[in-house]
C-alpha cells in the first residue's frame, strides 16, 4: 500500500488522475463504476465544476457523493442526486447524442480500440466474461470515449474475439461507414501509459513516470505507433497527479478499495 504522502501515488491513482483530465468543464459524462467514478469525482472537484455524471442504473449527479461508493447504486450516490430515474431516461441521453464523454473498460482491446468483455480464450479454454452491461451502448453512442485498463500484455490483441464495444472497427472512417453514431475512443489510459487514436488506430502518447516507451511497445502484438509517428513530437511523460488530486482520490476511496492494493 502506498504511503499517505500525496507526492507518492499508486499506478491506479495516476490512472484516475489522467482519466479525470479527460473530462472537460461542462461535460456530461457517462461514468459507470470503479476508477471512472472516482475520476469524475476528482474532475468535478477540480477543473470541471460544471460537469455532470450519468449512470446507466438511472442516476444523474452533479457532485461527488458524500460517502464511499462500491457501486453506482450505493445510497450515497442516490442521496441528493440531481435525479434518480430509469435506464431509458439515461440511455435516451446517449442515443440523442447528449453525452460528451463515456468511460469504458475491457478484458481485451485491439489495434482500433474495439473492446471485448464477453468471452476470451486462455489457450484452448473459453472463458465466459460478464458481458456488455451498458458498455456497448456507451461505445456506440457517446461523442467520445475514454478507455481505462490494467496494463497487461495479454489484454492487447491484434483483433478482439468478440466486439462487445465497438471502437474504430477496422480503422479510418469505419464508424461512419457502419453508421455507428458516436465518435469512438479518444484515449486509452493503462497502468503504464496513455494512448491516443490516429485514423482510428491506437498510438502511444505518454508513458507514466519511470516507464520505458520501448517496454510498453513490446507489450503489443503489432508494431505500435507512437506520438512521434503521428505528430513528430516525442512520446511524453504522463503528468503526475497533483497533490490535490491524490488527496481527493484518497478522500473518495479512503480504504483504497479501487485505487490501491
Amino acid at each position: 500500500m502506498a504511503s499517505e504522502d500525496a507526492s507518492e501515488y499508486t499506478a491506479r491513482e495516476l490512472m484516475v488522475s489522467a482519466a479525470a483530465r479527460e473530462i472537460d468543464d461542462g461535460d456530461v459524462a457517462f461514468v459507470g463504476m470503479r476508477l471512472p467514478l472516482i475520476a469524475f469525482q476528482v474532475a468535478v472537484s477540480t477543473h470541471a465544476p460544471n460537469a455532470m455524471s450519468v449512470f446507466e442504473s438511472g442516476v444523474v449527479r452533479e457532485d461527488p457523493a458524500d460517502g464511499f461508493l462500491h457501486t453506482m447504486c450505493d445510497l450515497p450516490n442516490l442521496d441528493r442526486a440531481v435525479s434518480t430515474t430509469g435506464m431509458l431516461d439515461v440511455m435516451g441521453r446517449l442515443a440523442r447524442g447528449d453525452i460528451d464523454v463515456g468511460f469504458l473498460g475491457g478484458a481485451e482491446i485491439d489495434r482500433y480500440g474495439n473492446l471485448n468483455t464477453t468471452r476470451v480464450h486462455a489457450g484452448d479454454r473459453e472463458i465466459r466474461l460478464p458481458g456488455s452491461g451498458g458498455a456497448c451502448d456507451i461505445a456506440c453512442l457517446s461523442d467520445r470515449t475514454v478507455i481505462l485498463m490494467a496494463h497487461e500484455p495479454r489484454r492487447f490483441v491484434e483483433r478482439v474475439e468478440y466486439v462487445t464495444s465497438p471502437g474504430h472497427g477496422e480503422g479510418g472512417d469505419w464508424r461512419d461507414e457502419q453508421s455507428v453514431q458516436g465518435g469512438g475512443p479518444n484515449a486509452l489510459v493503462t497502468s503504464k501509459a496513455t494512448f491516443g487514436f490516429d485514423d482510428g488506430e491506437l498510438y502511444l502518447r505518454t508513458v507514466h513516470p519511470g516507464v520505458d516507451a520501448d517496454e510498453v511497445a513490446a507489450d503489443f502484438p503489432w508494431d505500435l505507433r507512437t506520438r512521434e509517428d503521428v505528430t513528430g513530437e516525442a512520446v511524453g511523460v504522463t503528468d503526475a497527479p497533483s497533490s490535490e488530486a491524490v488527496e481527493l482520490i484518497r478522500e473518495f476511496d479512503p480504504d483504497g478499495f479501487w485505487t490501491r492494493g
Partner: protein
Amino acid sequence: MPADKTASMAEAIASIEPGSTIAAGLALEHAIPFAAGHELVRQGTDDLTLVGPISDVLFDQLVGAGLVSNVRAAWTGNVSAGSGYNFRRAVEGGELDVENHSNFSIALSLHAAELGVPYLPTRSLLGSDIAGEPQFRITEDPFEGQRVVQVPAIAPDWTFVHVQRAAPTGDAHLWGNTGVTYEAVRAADNVLVTAEEIVDPEVIKSDPSRTRITREQVTAVVEAPFGAHPSPVAGRYNRDNEFFLEYAEATRDEGGFDAWADEWIHGVESRAEYREKVTRDLSVREPTTAAEVTYGQ
C-alpha cells in the same frame, strides 16, 4: 373492495411454474429481490429463463442452484468482485444458454412488450458483435434511411420487484434509481412485489405520482423486510459490500455454492432469521427527507 393480494413468500413463489421466464434485478445494483430469489432456490423451481440488465449475483445464485436454462441479459457477475463463478462454470460447461444483450437493448426489449409492439428500433449496437446476435434484425428506417437495429419484445411470465412500500392491492412506491423496473413490470404477465413494508392504501394514494406500479399488473404482494440484502434500498439500508466479496470467495470453486446456500438459504427459516445473521450495521444514519408535496382540491 379491491382484492387483497398479500401472500407469504412461500405461497407466492409456489405459484410460479418451472420453465417460467423471470425478470429480476431490474434496478441494477439497487433493490434486488434476493429474498424472492432465495425462495425459488428453496422450492427448486427450475428450467428458468432469467431476464435482466445486470444481476449482481442474484442470477449467479439461481444458476448455482441449478435452476436456470437460459439467461437473456447484458451482464452477469458480481459488481464488487467481478466474476460470477457459477455463471462462468455453467456457460463454460455448456449447461446454460446466454442471449447477449446490452443494457439498452434489454431495456428496449422490455419496453417493446410494455408498448404492445413486436420490436423497437435503436441506433445502439451497430458496429458491435451484439448486433449480430440472432435475436436482432438490422434494417434501414423508411424515413431517413438510417441503419437501425430492431430489438424484439420480451414479455416475461413473471417480474420480481422489491420496493419500499406497497398496499395490499399491489399499488406500490419505489424510489431511488429504478433502472428498467417499470418497463419490466408492465411487460410481464405476472408481477411479484416484495416490499419492505405493507402499508395502508391511503399512504400510497396520498402520492399518486410516485405510484408507477399499479394493482392490475400485480399478482402477489409479500412483506419482506430486508428483502433486498445485500443490495441497498433507498432510505432503508445500505449495500453490504463485504457480503458480495465473501460470496465471491465462497463460490470461487465448484461446490462452493452448495455450502454457501446451506448457510444462507436452506439454513434460515425466515428472512427475520437471515437478518439476524447479518451483523454489519447497514442502517441509514443520515436520512434526507423529501420536500413536502401536496395534492388536494
